[in-house]
């Protein structure tokens, strides 16, 4: 329990650092977001709009610390500014819509990839020298060396265009109203396959190798040879003695890799025009929609922090040494 609370404290610090970075970055950089936006809407906005924009961006004439406090106040009210791309929708609304799709895609893909990779890693270490140990890792690593979006394009082309087995874009077929009926759910499902597969293919090698190496380290421990000396079945030894211990550093590694894999999944969304945060990020960049960009930065970062906190809780459940102090 204390461990979990300590970790929460850390995540709060990390969140604060992100908030503060988010505040300072625009102010440290050459160039002024308000002017950039103004220039973009050149001719369509009058000069007074420039100062209005500046204010909207929080670039007032107040001293810096006052601006910071105003910024924090806005943040706690959930006010992230107005989006340029979807003018005049507030950024928080724009993000809110897309967040669920990213969570769905990244959530299911990452969990599936981790589970599968871990399983493969266990078997690879169990049967050392077998094909799973010698051929699969380099092959999967090579696969993972391709950029996520490149694999996405490959899968989209082959299975979407050529074979036509799966849809080419979006999270579900147009015209379907969201609901928990079979039509909608199955549509969501088929639209998840290709992007999900991309993420799995790109990250599987990493998960597998990591678990395999951890297992090999664990298999050299004395309690494994004691288990062998007890005449226990190989299955029991591999699962309850080796894997259960190897899972601990593996879960820790999962938390740390989460941000990285999420970044890859965001790029994947773009290729499939999947309406998540990644797709939104592209639009924000293309349109110099700074409020949206910054809003996305905060939203994605906070999502990763929360996910990590859940991973920590899972870790406590797995490792009895963290429970009793």
């Amino acid at each position, binding site marked *: 329990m204390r461990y979990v609370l300590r970790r929460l404290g850390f995540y709060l610090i990390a969140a604060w650092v992100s908030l503060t970075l988010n505040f300072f970055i625009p102010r440290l950089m050459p160039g002024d977001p308000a002017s950039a936006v103004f220039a973009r809407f050149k001719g369509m906005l009058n000069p007074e709009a420039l100062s209005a924009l500046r204010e909207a961006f929080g670039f007032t004439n107040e001293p810096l610390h006052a601006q910071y406090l105003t910024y924090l106040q806005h943040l706690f009210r959930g006010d992230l500014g107005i989006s340029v791309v979807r003018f005049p929708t507030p950024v928080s609304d724009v993000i809110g819509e897309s967040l669920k799709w990213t969570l769905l895609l990244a959530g299911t893909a990452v969990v599936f990839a981790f589970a599968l990779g871990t399983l493969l890693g266990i078997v690879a270490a169990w049967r050392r020298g077998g094909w799973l140990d010698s051929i699969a890792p380099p092959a999967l690593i090579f696969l993972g060396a391709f950029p996520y979006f490149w694999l996405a394009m490959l899968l989209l082309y082959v299975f979407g265009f050529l074979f036509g087995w799966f849809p080419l874009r979006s999270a579900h077929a147009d015209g379907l109203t969201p609901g928990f009926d079979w039509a909608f759910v199955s549509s969501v499902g088929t639209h998840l396959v290709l992007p999900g597969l991309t993420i799995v293919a790109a990250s599987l090698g990493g998960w597998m190798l990591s678990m395999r190496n951890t297992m090999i380290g664990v298999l050299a421990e004395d309690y494994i040879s004691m288990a062998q000396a007890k005449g226990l079945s190989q299955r029991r030894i591999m699962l309850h003695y080796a894997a259960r211990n190897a899972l601990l550093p593996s879960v820790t590694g999962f938390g740390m890799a989460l941000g990285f894999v999420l970044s890859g999944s965001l790029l994947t969304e773009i290729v499939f025009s999947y309406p998540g945060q990644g797709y939104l990020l592209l639009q924000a960049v293309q349109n110099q929609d700074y409020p949206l960009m910054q809003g996305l930065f905060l939203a994605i970062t906070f999502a990763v922090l929360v996910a990590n906190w859940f991973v920590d809780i899972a870790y406590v459940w797995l490792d009895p*040494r963290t429970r009793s102090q």
Partner: protein
Amino acid sequence: MPEPLLSIRNLRVEYLTPNGPVRAVDNVSFDVGAGEVFGLAGESGCGKSTLALAALRLLPPPALITGGEVLFEGKDILGMDDAALASFRWRKISLVFQSAMNALNPVLTVGAQICDVIEKHERVTRAQALERSAELLRLMGIDSTRLRSYPHQLSGGMRQRVVIAIALALKPPMMFMDEPTTALDVVVQREIMQQIAELKRELGFSILFITHDLSLMVEFSDRIGILYAGKLVELSDAKSLFEKPRHPYTRGLMASFPAVRGPRRRLDGISGSPPDMLHPPEGCRFHPRCSEAIPRCRSTRPPLLRVAPDAEVACHLYPAEARRP
């Protein structure tokens, strides 16, 4: 003389290192009778642990058994397949490891680790296994509520007792103990050794007792074998060894231990260091460190010869009464 329980004949064990083969155990033979305590002594790296683990086929790659027999109750362990070994292990010979903290699985409770070996080898219900586990703990002086504890929640002495309790679980006719008390402080050490001696008197099992602590060994063993650089250099009953050590190495070992009582004398160690096992010395392996070496020692390996009814030595200084055993 009744058939020995354990009979090791001409055992040879090699490690195939990247730099070449290392013969860790070279042509070692000795017997252990029922109810006997056989002590195996030698300095670090001499091969005693390797020997014990090799006898049970527990050495991981790159270890290889390259010759000899290990007969237990007449059956050759070296000829058994994995299934026969799994059935044989723990039931006939159990193991007590040096470091209980490392020998116990951190994520399983003490109860689980005692029960799993009972359930593997005998047809019992979970409840019966738990009952027996509780009994075993009580036998070692541990409260049965500790069945639900994890290893990290126990003190060092308690953990070692748990490891011994697990070793007794199937009431095997023989136990291998590899430095069972080295990791503990002297007081606890004494308690545990006394407890082991008591249990042995009650249950009548034999012990292969491995340690580098010669004084402990002499007090506790019936017969003792001294190992140097993978070869047996002296084999005799404990009392004779203590009163009349023959091999220069044995004498060096004896002289390395201070007597608590009696006149103070200078402590002599054994000069030099253990040989490079990749390229051991020609002739007698000990000759570079031996103060009594004769020219013959450099060229010819001394065989293990019986020099008295209860003593065998491998040393050229003792050829006179020699008769091959």
